C-alpha cells in the first residue's frame, strides 16, 4: 500500500471568473509523476476540475474531516491558498508551490516553499487577485527531484 499524498491544487475562484493567478498550471504532469509512489487525494470544492491520476477526490470536507485526512497523509502539495495555513494550525508541513506571491510573507518556513524566481513576484503583494493576469511561466515545472525531501 502506497503512502498518501494530499494535493490542494487551486486557489479560490475569482468573482470575475478569471483564472486565479496563484493556480499552478502543471498539476496533471505532476500527478503523473507522483502517483507511482503515492496514493494522491485531491481536496477542494465541488466544481473544481479533477486532476487525472489521483486515487481519490475529497471535496467540501468539513475542517474536522480535513484535519483527519491531513494528519493521516504522508505530506501535502498545495498552491498558495488556505490549505498551508490550515496545515500550519494542525502542525502539518509539506510543499507549497509559489508563483507571484511571496512565501516570505504568506508562507511558513517549515514547509518546502517552491519558487521559480523571486523576480516573478508581483510588486504589490497585498492587492486583490481579481485583476492579476495568470502567467504559467512564473511557476517552476516540477519533477521528481523537487520532492526528494519528502520526509521533512
Amino acid at each position, binding site marked *: 500500500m502506497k503512502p498518501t499524498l494530499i494535493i490542494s491544487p487551486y486557489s*479560490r475562484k475569482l468573482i470575475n471568473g478569471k483564472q486565479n493567478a496563484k493556480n499552478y498550471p502543471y498539476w496533471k504532469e505532476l500527478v503523473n509523476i507522483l502517483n507511482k509512489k503515492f496514493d494522491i487525494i485531491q481536496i477542494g470544492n465541488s466544481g473544481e476540475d479533477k486532476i487525472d491520476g489521483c486515487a481519490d477526490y475529497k471535496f467540501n470536507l*468539513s*475542517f474536522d474531516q480535513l484535519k483527519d485526512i491531513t494528519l493521516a497523509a504522508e505530506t501535502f502539495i498545495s498552491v498558495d*491558498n*488556505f*490549505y*498551508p*495555513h*490550515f496545515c*500550519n*494550525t494542525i502542525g502539518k508541513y509539506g510543499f507549497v508551490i509559489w508563483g507571484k506571491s*511571496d512565501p*516570505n*510573507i*504568506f*508562507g*511558513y518556513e517549515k514547509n518546502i516553499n517552491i519558487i521559480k524566481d523571486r523576480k516573478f513576484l508581483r510588486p504589490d*503583494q*497585498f492587492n486583490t487577485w481579481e485583476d492579476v493576469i495568470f502567467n504559467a511561466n512564473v511557476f517552476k515545472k516540477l519533477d521528481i527531484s523537487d520532492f526528494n525531501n519528502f520526509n521533512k
Partner: protein
Amino acid sequence: MKYSIIIPTYNHCDDLLKPCIDSIIKYTNLESDIEIIISANGCKDNTKEYVESLGHPFKLVWNSDAIGFSRAINAGIEASTGEYVVLLNNDIILLEQEKNTWIDMLVEPFKDATVGITGPIKGPSTPANREFIIFFCCMIKREVFDKIGFLDPIFGVGGGEDTDFCIRAESSDYKTVQVPSTGPLDSNDVSNIMIGGFPIYHVGEATMHDTNCVSGWSAIFDNNSRILAERYNHQWRLGNYCERAVISKDDPVPPREHTRYTWAKENIVGTKVLEIGCSSGYGWRYFKDIPNIDYLGIDKDEGVITFAKENFGDRFKIADINTFDFEQYDTIVAFEVLEHLDNGKEIAQKLKKHCKCLLGTVPFNETPGMWGHHHKLHKLSQKDFLEFDYKFIHLEGGIYDFPDHYEGLNLILMKWEQGKNYDIPINKTVTAVIPTKGRYHTTLPLAIMSVINQTAHVDRLIIIDDGEKLDLRENVLYTYFFKLLDDKGIKWEVVFGNGKGIAHSHQLSINMCETEWIWRLDDDCSAEPNVLELLLESVDSKTGAVGGLVMNPVMPKTNDCASSKIKDIFLGLNEQWFIPNDKSIKQVDHLYSSFIYRKSAASHGYCLDLSEVGHREETIFTHEMKRNGWDIKINPNAVTHHFMNPEGGIRSYSNGSLWQHDENLFLEKLKFWNIDADKHKLIVLDNGLGDHFAFKSILNEILEKHSKIIIACCYPDVFKDYPDIPLISIASVSHADREKYNLYKFLIDNQKETINLVDAYRRLYL
C-alpha cells in the same frame, strides 16, 4: 482616725474660710477622732497664717500654685488618715445644730456596707444624664478611694469631678446616698440660703465666680460637661442631638420606639432578620424572645455599633447600606433610616428583593430642618413608597390608620410581604425630552415629528438646545411644528442648555418635568408611532425604565452575542441595537440612547461629573436606577431609528480626552459597583479563509495575553473548536475598528519591511 475633713481653699480666707471653720468648730465635736485638713493652693492672702494659728486638729496642706479643685482635694486625701473622708467646700457654713449632727447624718448610711458616698444633695447631671452627690459636702468611705482612686484631675479648676467620681463609685457597686433621704435641700431665692433637712448653708461656686481666682469659668464648666457627656451620656454622645434614640439595655424606651418594635416583633416573618439602621441595638430587647431568631443589626455609625455590642452582644455590624452585601432574609427591618438616604425611596424597593417581609418607618410629611441635617428626604408620604401597607404611629405611640399631625411628628408604618398583591394605579403621564445641538435642519425635525405622531399621548415636549440657541419660533419649519404640537395638546418648551452637555441637559429635564414618566429621545432618532404606547404598556409598579430597540438603518439587524448585561458593556453589542429572536420583554442591566424612565426613580440623577460629551451617561443613569431596586427593561417591539447623524449632536466634541475622562469615570463606577466587566479584546478578521487560519496559528498566544477576546470574522467555522470565544459577524464591527484592525492595511502601511502574515497578526494583537 475615724474622720478626715478636707477643705480646699484658694484665697478668700477672711470671707469664706474663716466663717466655714468657725461653724465647724462650733458644731463639731473636735475632741472626737477627727482631723481637719485645709488644702490651700495658690493662696496669696493670710490663709497660711490663719490655718497655722488654729492648732490641733487642724492641718495645713500647702501648695503655692493654684492646682485646681480635684488636685487640691487629692492632696488633702493623701495627707489624711481617717476611715471616712469628708469633703467640704470653703463656701459653706454649718447651720445651728447639736454638735456633730451633720457628721452623724453623713455617716449614718454607712451602716450599709455597700454605701460608698453620702451627702446632702443628690441631684441630676444633665451632661452625664445621671444623678450624683454634689461634693460641696460629702462623706466618702476610705476604701472607695482605695478601689477607684482619687478625683480625676482632668477636670482641672473644677466642676464635674464629683459627678465622675460618683459614677465610677457606682460602677464599682458602691451606693451613693442622699442624707437625709426625705428629699433634697431646696434653695431660697431670697436669702440664697440652703434650707432643708441638712444643717448647712452653701454659697456655691464662690471661688469659681471670683475672676481674680478663676477666669473663664463658664468655658471651663462647659468643657467639663463635655467630658462627662463623652464618658457617660450615650444619648448625648451618639444621638445626633436627639435626632436618634440611643437606648441601652437599661434605659426606658420612648413610646414611639416601643410601639414600632412591639409591632415589628408581632409582624416579623421567619427567623432570619436584618435590621438596617439599628442604632444602639435596642431592638434586640424586643426580638431576643423570638424562637431561633438569627438577627443581624447594621448601622453606618461605628459609635452606635460599638455601643450596641457592649449592650446587646456581638450581633451588630458597621455597614453602609449602599455598599452592603445583602443576603436573603426572612424579614428586613428599617426603622427611620430611609429618610437619611438620598436614595431612600429606591432602597426601599431594592430591599424587597432581599426578603420575604419588609417592615419600616419614616417620618410622615416632615418639614425640612425639623429633625436636623441628618435627614435627606422630606415631605415623605405613602406615594413615595409604592407597594406597602401603611399605618401611622402618633406621637404618643398609638398605631392608627390616619395621621393626626401633618408636619413630621407621625411616622408612616410600612409593611410589605412577598407575594401579596399591591394594586397601585400607575401614573403614565409623559414628558418627551430632546437635547439637541446643531441639528435644526437635519435630524431634529424627524425626532420632533415622531413625538407628534405617537399613538400614546405626550403631555409635554421639552427641547433642550445646547447649541446655537436660536429662537425657533422665527423659523418657518418650527412654526409648523409648534402649531402641530398645540393642535395635539402637547405642551412644548424650548430651553437653552448650560453648554455642559447631555448629562446636564437631562438633569435639567428631570428638574423641570412634572409628569411621572420622562421619554428621552436623541435629536437624531425617529421613533415609530407606537413606541411610547408599547413602552408604557411594559411598565408596572417596579419599573424604573423601559427602552425599545434603537436601530441604525445601515447596521446589521441581528447579532446573537448582543448583551445588555453591565459586565458585557465592553463587548459593545447592546441588545437594543439588534432584533432578537425572542421579542418578549426582558430585564436588562442598563439602557442606551432612547427610553422612558420614571421621574420618582431618578432621584439619584444623572452623573454630572461626566464631561460635555456625556459618554456612557445613560448607562450610568439606568444602571444606578437598577441598583436602587428598580426594574430596567427592553421591549423589542418598540423600534426607534437612530440615524447616527455624523453632523452636530450634543456629543459632538472632537477632544478625545473628554471621552477618555468619561471612560475613566465609568471604570471607577464599575469598580464601585464591584463589577468586573469583561474586557474583550476585539479581533477583526475581515479577510480570507487562509488569513483566518494564519491568525488561528497564534490564537493561543493571544489568549495568553488577552484572556477575553471577541472575534469578528467571515468564517466562524474556523474557530468552532474554541466554543468559549464569542464570534460576531464582521458586519457588526464599526468602520473605525475594521480599519484599525485591517491586516492588509497594516501590511501596506509597513511594506517597507517584509513582514510575515503571522508576524503581522502578532504585531496587531500582541
